[in-house]
């Protein structure tokens, strides 16, 4: 086995896994706090992606500057969605919640198709498609930057959950909603902020994807199913689980693509087979705390 190529394959897998993590972390936060299966998550990514694209092409604003803008914008949108759509069904059966979020997905996607057409668009910044060389390794600069953003935001979120008052409240609600309510935690506010933060993470994912791949109205769908699989694998609500799950998925895809003949056709199949196997052994996910 050629070690240089092996290193390249592993690097590819980690970079892809980092991207998955950025999207899965926001999703698992929302699920952990509210127990709501939020299909709109993919659309926050799509909106973040278009926002970045338009800010860049119309006003020349660098994607790194639009990152905080996208985070704020999607936070506000997330809070609004929670307040006006999710909150009324928070105690309704799961099926109703799924139908509601799925309905929102269809509305947002179709609005995007009407406003921006179904064309695939992408932008070219000064540092697009520049590659960094580490010995025999060659990795895209934007992918590395994307990974850095993912790590940075995930660490920030973890710290916020550990250190801040809001974080403690979030963890309390995640563990036991009723008990938290009885202890005087303002669950409604925790819900709203958690949904906002989750959506903001999705928006940040959009900023990164707009840089490294392309944008079109259905781009969220490409990610959201994988993100769900990752969340299930990691254990619903577990951020560490989402990160590990993302890396497992990214690495398996990369290894299968490279080392199996006609492998890219198999990559997703094998990855999901691995997920199924892990779930058979640990039905509640890798990081599920009893």
């Amino acid at each position, binding site marked *: 086995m050629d070690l240089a190529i092996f290193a390249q394959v592993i690097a590819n897998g980690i970079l892809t896994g980092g991207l998955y993590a950025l999207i899965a972390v926001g999703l698992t936060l929302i699920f952990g706090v509210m127990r709501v299966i939020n299909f709109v998550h993919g659309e926050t990514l799509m909106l973040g992606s278009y926002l970045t694209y338009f800010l860049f092409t119309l006003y020349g604003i660098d994607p790194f500057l639009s990152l905080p803008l996208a985070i704020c914008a999607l936070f506000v949108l997330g809070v609004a969605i929670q307040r006006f759509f999710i909150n009324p069904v928070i105690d309704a059966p799961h099926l109703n919640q799924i139908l509601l979020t799925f309905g929102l997905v269809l509305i947002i996607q179709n609005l995007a198709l009407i406003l921006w057409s179904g064309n695939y668009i992408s932008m070219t910044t000064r540092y697009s498609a520049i590659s960094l060389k580490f010995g025999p390794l060659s990795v*895209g600069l934007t992918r590395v930057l994307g990974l850095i953003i993912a790590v940075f935001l995930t660490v920030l979120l973890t710290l916020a959950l550990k250190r801040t008052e809001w974080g403690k409240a979030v963890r309390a609600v995640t563990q036991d909603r009723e008990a938290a309510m009885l202890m005087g935690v303002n669950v409604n506010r925790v819900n709203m902020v958690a949904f906002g933060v989750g959506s903001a993470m999705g928006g940040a994912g959009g900023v990164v994807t707009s840089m490294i791949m392309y944008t079109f109205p259905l781009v969220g769908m490409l990610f959201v199913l994988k993100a769900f699989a990752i969340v299930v694998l990691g254990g619903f609500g577990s951020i560490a689980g989402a990160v590990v799950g993302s890396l497992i998925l990214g690495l398996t895809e990369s290894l299968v693509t490279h080392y199996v003949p006609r492998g890219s056709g198999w990559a997703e199949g094998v990855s999901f087979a691995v997920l199924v196997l892990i779930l058979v052994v640990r039905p509640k996910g890798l990081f599920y705390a009893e």
Partner: protein
Amino acid sequence: MGRFYIRLMAFIFLFSLLGPIAQAAETMKIGVILPLTGSTAVIGQEEKRGIDMAIEKINAAGGALKKKVELIIEDNRGDPTVIVSAAEKLITRDKVVALTGGYSSVESLAFLAAMKKYEPVSVWQGGGAVKMDQMYGKERWFFMLHPRSPDYQRNIADFLNGIQPRPNRIAIAYEDTSYGVDHSKVAKGYLTELGFELVTFEPFKSGSLDFSALLTKIKGARPDIFYWIGYAGDSILITKQAKELGFAPKMLLDTVGVGFPEYADSLKKDAEYICGIEVWGPYAKFPASVQYPQFYPKTEDWVAEYKKRYNREPDYWSPISYVALITLTNSINKAGSTEKEKLIAALEATDTMTPMGHMKFFKNQFGAIHQSFHDMIIFQWQKGAKVPLWPKQTAGGKLGYPLPAWDKR
């Protein structure tokens, strides 16, 4: 009162009988079936733009057999059942002398199955599936203008074979639904027949979020040419990641994914030198017809006229529809009659240059006796525009080959 109505009805009835007779004496009716509404309306409307341009010119040049040509246009809404009833109505009620139109292969197959009963002379621009050739290609009344789906790969193979110095090692990657799978199989056949070495032959999932693993593998196989068969989004990402991985073979080639204007707009100079194929493009460089310069100016002039009229860029559905209708009326004039056998003979003798390419019916390898257009255009992005490089005799520039390093583009 009752008597008045009876008289009125009788009068209307008599008049309606006279109407078509009087009209038939004055005009030459041709039936056109297009998907003018429905999900494929964008294409039906583009076809109609070509047809509107054609009929104006035909009648300005004296029509057919000194009669004004009258088009009876039916909208089949992209529906294969409606196409059959529309064609039956045109034949039995309107008594048209011939038919033209069509878009998809599904519609065209339904049309052909139903028309075997009537055998109307049809100069048909719809459908590229070889199934049409195999099942109905021997029908003498049926004339196909659309290139057949394997023609894409035959053109690509011939194009690659003509490059100097000739490349040898080819890596193929294809998206794994029927589009990519079918095309890759045909490509493999043509390329191995010409003695190329296929160093990889890998499927991928369209909409993949990352192609770096696939590209690392292909880069490792050291191909001269990397040829992928994917959709628009895939092509953008594959190009970006090829650059990131420093993968710069002598040529990067795709089928249709790199043809969209958004591709070059998105990638800017990274789209430079990428090659693709399309049935036809407004940048094509076909010369004017010797026989029919009034109908078929050189491509550039035809496109200018189209742009002036519609204020937009044509895609290939307008010129192919334009050529179909004019071929029909030219052949009626040449036959001097609308009698079926004479008209078929005249159509078979068609041999002229058109803005769409060389128009001549030939017997193809898939079982059809009347196929016309089969040369497609292979282009290379150069300075943000498509430069046609194939067919060779109508090339509009020089092929950039082998490709310079990514940072020199």
